[in-house]
């Protein structure tokens, strides 16, 4: 009798779970879309603590550039630096040249060969051809690339086989800013699909003033991208990206530039070939960076010489080849690979019209050889244990210096019950000095060939409780940064003999009202052992994604805690960035949308030495029209 009641209860309890068996066509289509999402195919739980921006979210957000995405990432604040470039600052700290950021488009690493960071060139990378973005925090999986990143941003392009058509978009808004973009896809003979994308983006900001001088603020971007692929066979990519922006106050002693701008170009070819389980990638990239800074009141270089016209150009070449393979034997999975990378630069310095390129000292190229192995053990049906090791050899081609280094990581990913997922990692990594930091030339800051890598050790844990309707996340990360590279009072790079310790905490919640409507709330804070903060130590956001009939709505409110920058003697107030976007799908071929960013004009300001706190995001409204055919 009791057993009969038990079966009845079980039947009633399980009945709702089987509703899908009699789903209507709308529901089936929705579920098919969810199950087919490309972000599910690229997400790797074992790779770290990740944040995903899906295609649907990026569309509703009207995320046209990378800035629209990275500005709300927890434990980071997007801030312009004194040369007008955008950086992501780790909570409480200051990260030079965003060396803590690693950026990828598919498998291609988009990092400056000279500066070591990515955002100096790609912060406004156009996202019109991007399907989704995976962000890994707190140390990347070693398999992603050679060099460590506190944050790894992986952008995945749209699948030509799923786009099936073309689109053209036009945007216009505040300060005559505009964006023009076009995408087309198709199929060639022999089942080769292609996607071509082009965009031009001009972003004008309010001109600043300083000591009677105008400091214009603008950026200009050109993005050309092409991919040709045959399923399970090969992917061939070509890309050219140009980014020009103001150099803000520049290097001048009085911060009074009559001209200050930076121009970058990055282009690459990449071929990925699949041989059964083996993936081989060969890529060649060229980078050009040009810095022009004229200052009537002069610029003092590291050696004490004085100039009013500073012109600095670098040509970098980056060659990479890597092969990766994975094998599974019962409960044991092995993922292993080898990589070779060559970075070479050709500097060109023109100071007051005099060519001083021959004064360049230090390594002008680095060869990097690495081999890695990740071992995963399926401890139980719900638990995976992993251990990774990587051996690396850096050849600087200067003073015969060679560094042999290791990186390692252990972790656990466990589905504790039907709803609760736990991830925990302990990793030991380092950031190798960039060519810019190692080499010396007629620049305001002197390089240092004796720099050693900065050690980064992390311990992290994250719980995620997920039901069909809501998800709650709770995380902690402890990070030790040993011997970070800084600039001393003599304007020279050096390893600061400290151990900076950061304790990061976050809590977030996503509530899905239904497939099209949800709210995300997140708050984070960081404690550290440094004497003062150089960026916000706490922050959070509320994001609302809504759909009603043919309208999509997106509302975002980002908070960043104010701080006092004691070195610059600046007090930064709390920041509140309100973004609102509405998209009207007029018909199957036309979409009209309107977006306003920093509508309260109170987004967090960035402290700039010798100037005053400036806004990274202007108050801006853009009207967009997009046609599909």
């Amino acid at each position, binding site marked *: 009798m009791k057993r*009969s009641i038990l*079966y*009845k209860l*079980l*039947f009633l309890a*399980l*009945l709702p*779970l*089987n509703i*899908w*068996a009699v*789903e*209507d*066509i*709308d529901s*089936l*289509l929705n*579920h*098919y*879309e969810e*199950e*087919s999402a490309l972000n599910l195919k690229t997400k790797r739980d074992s790779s770290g603590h990740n944040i995903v921006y899906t*295609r649907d979210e990026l569309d509703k957000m009207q995320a046209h550039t990378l800035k629209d995405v990275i500005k709300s990432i927890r434990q980071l604040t997007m801030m312009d630096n004194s040369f007008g470039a955008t950086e992501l600052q780790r909570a409480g700290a200051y990260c030079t040249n965003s060396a803590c950021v690693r950026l990828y488009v598919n498998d291609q690493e988009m990092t400056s060969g000279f500066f070591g960071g990515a955002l100096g060139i790609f912060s406004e990378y156009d996202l019109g051809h991007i*399907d989704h973005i995976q962000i890994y925090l707190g140390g990347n999986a070693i398999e992603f690339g050679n060099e460590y990143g506190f944050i790894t941003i992986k952008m995945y392009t*749209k*699948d030509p*086989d*799923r*786009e*099936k*058509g073309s*689109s053209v978009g036009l945007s216009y808004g505040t300060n005559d800013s505009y964006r023009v973009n076009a995408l087309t896809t198709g199929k060639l003979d022999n089942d080769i699909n292609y996607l071509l994308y082009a965009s031009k983006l001009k972003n004008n900001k309010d001109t600043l003033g300083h000591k009677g001088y105008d400091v214009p603020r603008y950026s200009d971007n050109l993005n050309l991208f092409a991919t040709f692929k045959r399923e399970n066979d090969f992917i061939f990519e070509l890309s050219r990206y140009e980014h020009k922006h103001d150099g803000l106050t520049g290097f001048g002693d009085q911060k009074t530039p009559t001209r200050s701008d930076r121009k970058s170009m990055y282009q690459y070819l990449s071929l990925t070939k699949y041989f059964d389980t083996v993936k081989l990638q060969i890529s060649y990239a060229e980078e050009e960076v040009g810095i022009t800074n004229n200052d009537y009141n002069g610029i003092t270089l590291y050696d004490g010489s004085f100039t009013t016209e500073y012109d600095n150009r670098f040509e970098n070449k980056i060659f990479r080849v890597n092969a990766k393979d994975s094998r599974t034997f019962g409960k044991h999975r092995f993922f292993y690979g080898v990589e070779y990378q060559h970075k070479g630069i050709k500097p060109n310095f023109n100071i007051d019209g005099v060519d001083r390129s021959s004064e360049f000292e230090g390594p002008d190229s680095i060869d990097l050889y690495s081999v890695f192995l990740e071992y995963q053990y399926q401890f139980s049906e719900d638990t995976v244990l992993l251990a990774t090791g990587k051996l690396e050899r850096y050849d600087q081609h200067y003073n015969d210096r060679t560094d042999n280094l290791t990186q390692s990581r252990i972790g656990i990913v466990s589905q504790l019950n039907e709803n609760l997922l736990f991830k925990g990692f302990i990793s030991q990594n380092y950031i190798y000095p960039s060519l810019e930091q190692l080499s010396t030339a007629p620049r305001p800051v002197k390089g240092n060939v004796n720099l050693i890598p900065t050690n980064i050790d992390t311990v992290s844990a994250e719980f995620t409780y997920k039901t069909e309707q809501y998800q709650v996340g709770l995380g902690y990360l402890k990070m030790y940064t040993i011997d970070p590279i800084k600039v001393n009072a003599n304007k020279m790079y050096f390893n600061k003999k400290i151990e900076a310790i950061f304790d990061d905490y976050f809590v977030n919640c996503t509530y899905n009202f239904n497939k099209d409507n949800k709210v995300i709330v997140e708050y984070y804070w960081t404690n550290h052992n440094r004497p003062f903060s150089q960026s916000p130590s706490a922050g959070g956001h509320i994001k609302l994604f809504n759909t009603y009939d043919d309208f999509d709505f997106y509302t975002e409110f980002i908070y960043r805690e104010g701080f006092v920058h004691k070195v610059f003697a600046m007090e930064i107030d709390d920041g509140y960035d309100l973004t609102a976007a509405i998209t009207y799908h007029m018909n*199957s*071929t036309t979409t009209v949308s309107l977006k306003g960013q920093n509508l309260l004009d109170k987004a967090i300001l960035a402290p700039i030495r010798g100037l005053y706190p400036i806004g990274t995001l202007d108050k801006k409204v853009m009207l967009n029209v997009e046609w*599909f*055919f």
Partner: protein
Amino acid sequence: MFKFLSILLILGSLLNASEKEYASKIIKNLVEVIDKPNTSVWIDSYDTKVFGLFDLAKFNVVKSCKKAKVMILSSEKTIPKGCNTKPILVLDYELLEKHDNAVSAFFWKKGRPNIVFISDRIKHFSISLPASYDKYIEEKIW
């Protein structure tokens, strides 16, 4: 009885409906509204892409298109003789233009899966769609 049903439900719940299963269900639904449940279908099965997309075992597949009530096309193939009067479900939107008998399409566009029925073609075949399909009916091909 409840014991039997509960076991069935437990088994059903354990099945994680995958991308392929949902695609199979959608195509099965489309085929059924074009004709009737468990109707006979012919598939241009030489295209290996079809096998990856959905599960053929879920369908009453016939080898000769002459014996089929509904045809499924995924690629540009010539319709075998004697079969060019039957309704077709296409898995590529462009095939709607190439085949006048293509009444419906299940396809990817702008990164999303879509369904469409062409109004005059469903009238031609006297297909009566349930009300839940109304929003998928379009007057013309883009």
